């Protein structure tokens, strides 16, 4: 085993995954979001750039690349410039443990699920300091709100992850998918965990109905109000990468990952992932925004106790039956 070769391979994979995220998650994701939004609200959505508006986000990206970078004079420039990088890289690292197919996984870490939770929690730091460094009232309030929301929903997310890990008896994502080959999709066995995971994942990525941090009508754009051009795009990239990672994780944990008849595994995986993404977008265009106190109550008084009790129930059944 030669270390040099492995490093070259790892660099290649990083570039591949990053490009995949930028194209499939961010560009296609934004386009889908607008198209689905238009469809749900009986309008057309983007239509002019390219056939059926397919190239709209490509045009947007090129536009953003030419935009001047503006940092407010009052901002703490060093931190201001670092924050989007943290968010983008944390979004990228999530994908290391996602299995696209039996052999299509960057690395099957033995503690895959813990790793996923840890990387998701790193995003909070980027958002918090991004909001702080802007030295803007909306940004700071958005950053604080965002951080308190994300930390509140990290715990229910973790309880769902643990319930699945208990059922599968392993923390590795590949192991969890293989366990579902024998016991059926965990969406049936672990339905409460699935619901908790979906709600918590929606909140983790700050989407409607949990989009308080960037509530356009109250806080301008939340923690990234002051970010322009490519730095704004990096925040968007991180957010969409995170959202797709959550969808991919839901697929892996509950929907049997890449498994399915006839079609090749990757296709199955992407189909299931896009199904969850569609579900998230559907929610976005259907529900109104929650109030901050409702949001926190939902997490602390309902989801967290429910998650812990569900862990006990799962443990009870596995131990005694």
């Amino acid at each position: 085993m030669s270390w040099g070769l492995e490093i070259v391979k790892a660099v290649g994979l990083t570039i591949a995954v990053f490009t995949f995220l930028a194209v499939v998650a961010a560009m296609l994701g934004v386009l889908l979001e607008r198209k689905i939004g238009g469809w749900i609200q009986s309008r057309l959505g983007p239509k002019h750039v390219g056939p059926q508006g397919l190239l709209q986000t490509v045009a947007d990206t090129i536009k953003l690349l030419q935009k001047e970078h503006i940092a407010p004079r009052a901002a703490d420039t060093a931190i201001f410039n670092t924050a989007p990088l943290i968010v983008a890289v944390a979004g990228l690292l999530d994908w290391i443990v996602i299995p696209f197919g039996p052999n299509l996984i960057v690395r099957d870490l033995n503690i895959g699920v813990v790793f996923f939770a840890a990387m998701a929690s790193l995003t909070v730091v980027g958002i918090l300091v991004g909001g702080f460094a802007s030295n803007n009232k909306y940004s700071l309030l958005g950053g604080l709100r965002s951080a308190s929301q994300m930390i509140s929903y990290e715990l229910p997310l973790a309880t769902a992850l643990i319930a699945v890990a208990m059922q599968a008896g392993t923390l590795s994502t590949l192991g969890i998918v293989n366990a579902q080959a024998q016991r059926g999709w965990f969406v049936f066995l672990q339905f409460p965990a699935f619901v908790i995971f979906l709600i918590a994942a929606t909140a983790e990525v700050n989407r409607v109905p949990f989009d308080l941090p960037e509530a356009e009508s109250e806080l301008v754009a939340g923690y990234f109000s002051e970010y322009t051009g490519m730095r704004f795009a990096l925040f968007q990239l991180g957010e969409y990468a995170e959202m797709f990672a959550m969808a991919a994780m839901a697929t892996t944990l509950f929907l049997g990952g890449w498994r399915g008849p006839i079609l090749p595994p990757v296709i199955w995986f992407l189909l299931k992932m896009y199904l969850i993404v569609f579900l998230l977008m559907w929610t976005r265009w259907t529900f109104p925004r929650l109030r901050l106190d409702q949001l926190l109550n939902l997490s602390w008084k309902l989801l967290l106790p429910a998650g812990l009790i569900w862990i006990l129930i799962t443990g009870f059944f596995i131990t005694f039956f």
Partner: protein
Amino acid sequence: MGELAAFIILSAITLASAVVVVTSGNIVRSALSLVPTFLGVTGLYILLQAEFVAGIQVLIYAGAITVLILFVIMLTEGGTGLRVRQTNEQVPLSILAAAVLAVLLVGVLAQAPWPRAAELLPQYTASGIGEALLTNLVLVFEVTSLVLLVALMGAIIVARRER
């Protein structure tokens, strides 16, 4: 060879960002530098084959404690305290104390004849940790939960404004 390089890089990251943590005049920057410090320590755990501890290090230190520290900075002085003197008049004395301790510790540690065990650590340790916690060290495990409970209660009482 590769291991040594990784060790040097990780220690350099850890120590360099720790220096920023302890010397920066801007408290937010010092709190933010905690993140690379903790990540560097995470890397050292990996080199020591403590994979699970490494994951927890990121989850708790980088993801939770740093956020809590940032919260408190923003809730107390925040940016308004940026131009305030951060060090007291004991700086020369502290440098001396830290340097003396460093020389002493490094001198002792380098010379001590540490016993070397023959056996090797298992490659993957997460399940081993679980077994140890639930069998031999079960008392530690349960007492930990009590400590957590007491810390939670105490901190709520202290931090809250009684009405």
